[in-house]
């Protein structure tokens, strides 16, 4: 039973996909099937409208989430009315979204649900706090399509990453791109001393200031333009950029590598724990990669087990 034991060590875990159809939903269903829900109170939700029956962009079928008896789930009023097993209502939220308010219920039998939980990170955090009266041990969050922000350690403690042929149809390229994301997730925690210089965007950065400051706090997103400016004004010696967490880094791999070669380093205020990487070798356009080679190469590159849960259907 790969990595499910790891999941139970955390109070909140996000499942995020690097692309649409990267196998995120299968991954979530896999986890749910194997959780000992008889002994743990588990709640599941998604962020945003990621519970459509068909994928809005490619039109491919989007599997629903199967909740098990005794599990809590949160979804919109609209989707709650549309499809669910017999469920006991625990809460109806206060915030209105396009799909109505967020409803929190406990499944009284196993069945399929369409997940469309809180619509923003802040609303998601409020929902997570509201659960504390229900004695929830573990919260699973189905991250929105290609939105890593759900995996921010400010929201969830740990994450499972799903990647696949939908992200790139070339194994080497897919491994390289995925490994870069993993590298960012593993950026080291900032240890001090406190930076004297804070910048919020490239336009507010005075290149002259770089000379005297070797540790710079980046408030908000670290973009290519900002990183480029820092790199160019770097001169000799080490420099450290401090960001909130890995979801704030939006720079290209090439630029990041060039920055590191010049003696640059990025650290984070909050760190997320990466529990596992799952792959889906099938792309929506029909391309199928060799699952075993993909798993092997990615695993070797990131030093973490990689699973194709659909193909292998690991034993419980």
């Amino acid at each position, binding site marked *: 039973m790969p990595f499910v034991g790891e999941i139970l060590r955390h109070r909140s875990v996000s499942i995020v996909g690097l692309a649409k159809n990267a196998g995120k939903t299968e991954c979530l269903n896999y986890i749910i099937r194997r959780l000992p829900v008889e002994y743990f109170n588990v709640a599941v939700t998604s962020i945003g409208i990621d519970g459509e029956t068909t994928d809005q962009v490619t039109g491919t079928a989007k599997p629903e989430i199967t909740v098990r008896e005794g599990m809590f789930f949160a979804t919109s*009023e609209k989707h*709650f*009315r549309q499809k669910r097993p017999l*469920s*006991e*209502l*625990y809460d*109806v939220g*206060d915030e209105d979204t396009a799909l109505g308010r967020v*409803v929190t219920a406990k499944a009284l039998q196993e069945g399929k649900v369409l997940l469309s939980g809180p619509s923003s990170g802040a609303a998601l955090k409020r929902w997570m706090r509201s659960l504390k009266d229900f004695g929830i041990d573990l919260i699973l969050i189905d991250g929105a399509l290609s939105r890593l922000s759900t995996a921010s350690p400010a929201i969830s403690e740990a994450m499972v990453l799903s990647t696949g042929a939908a992200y790139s149809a070339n194994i080497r390229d897919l491994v390289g791109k995925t490994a870069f994301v993993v590298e960012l997730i593993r950026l080291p925690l900032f240890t001090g001393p406190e930076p004297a210089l804070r910048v919020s965007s490239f336009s507010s950065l005075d290149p002259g200031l770089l000379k005297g400051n070797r540790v710079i706090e980046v408030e908000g997103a670290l973009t290519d333009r900002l990183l480029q400016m820092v790199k160019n004004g770097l001169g000799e010696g080490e420099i450290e950029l401090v960001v909130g967490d890995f979801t704030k880094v939006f720079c290209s791999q090439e630029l990041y590598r060039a920055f590191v070669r010049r003696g640059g380093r990025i650290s984070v205020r909050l760190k997320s724990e990466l529990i596992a990487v799952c792959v889906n070798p099938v792309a929506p356009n029909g391309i199928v990669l060799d699952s075993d080679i993909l798993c092997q190469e990615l695993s070797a590159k990131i030093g973490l087990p990689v699973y194709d849960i659909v193909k292998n259907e690991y034993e419980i």
Partner: protein
Amino acid sequence: MKFREIVESPCGIRYLFDELGLQSGYARKVLLDREMMVDPDRIDAAYASLRKYFDLVLSDRRRVEDMRFRLQGLRDISGTLASLAGGATLDEIEFFEIKHLAMLAQSLSMGTELETVIDILDPDGLRIGTFYLYDSYSVALRQLRDAVEQDPDDSQLQEDLANEEDRLKKVISDKLRPYAASLQQTLRELADLDISLAQAIQMHVEGLILPSSGSATTITGMFHPGVRAALRAKGREFQPVDFAFERGVPATVIGANMGGKTVALKTLCMLQYLYQFGFGLPAVSAVMTPFDEIRFCIGDEQDEKTGLSSFAAEMQRIDRAVAVVEKGGKVLLLVDEPARTTNPVEGTALVAALLQRLADKPNLALVMTTHYTVEHAGQCWRVQGLLPGTKGRRMDYRLVRTASHEVPHEALNIARELGIDAQWIDLADTIMKRQYE
């Protein structure tokens, strides 16, 4: 006039609204939709109720915090209750909302007649706040659920189950329908409770008082909470001010620049609104009297957005207020430095004429700040002004009654205190003296 319409008033009442610790979005909505009270008996009744909650805040803060914590669960289910009253069949989400409301009211010792509602929505007598269509609602329901579980692919069974669920929803809705009005009232009372507790706590936190109602207005030690907070952030204190006015006797406020005339006028306006919406007042003591209309004429940035010159916007604003006064109701008219943007010759004439135009209006209470010397039959108040020789606080903001309507000539002294170019100010001094000799 609803609270919503005055919350952005330039008097700055927004500060107290923002600082009000309401627990539910619904209470916020109810407060914004509240009508301004004009009947002194109603206002006194509102304050009698607020006094009760204020006493509770002082005597049993723990209980108050427990109540406020519960009120976080208050939701606006007026739509659901309207559907119920209108004869609709409700669904599980709506039943949950009703049960949640009834149990919330019960936990706050309110809506005692809702016990039956809870019974209807809690057939197993579990008294927990969750809901689903319980098996015990009908034997058929339980049997069909068992059958569907045995044979999940039988579409006939599924349809039968859905039909039985629909039938039960209608039965439950019909049973609940007689309580729709009672539920509506409870919903409203819970919002009122949330508002009252928040107001009572605000009284404690900001040091607000309960006023009494009378035929004229007499306030001692009034302050502007928003301005006070801004001053405190800079390590300074707000100097409380006394003031009094009555209908039929126009009052002007004169005094040095930066003497707090505008702030005093804003504070008066805010106190009047707070009084007529039943909030605690920022003062040491206050006798207040209600008005049918409160008009506050002050220039604001909105003028620029609408493209009017500040003079045009001001004249039109006062013009509309004069029309309101002509209608004859009880009006409080607060005017900040009318005609200040035009030349002093015509400006003085406009102000003097406005006072004459509004003389002999027994239902009008007029308070006007001005830099112009205008004689009138009413009262004149003057900012104490610069205290000579003292360091630290240089301005005494208190307002005092004065017989002379002659405006003080302190602008040059204040400019010197501000460190403005000395040659300029000395020249102005010379020109002034030449004019007066």
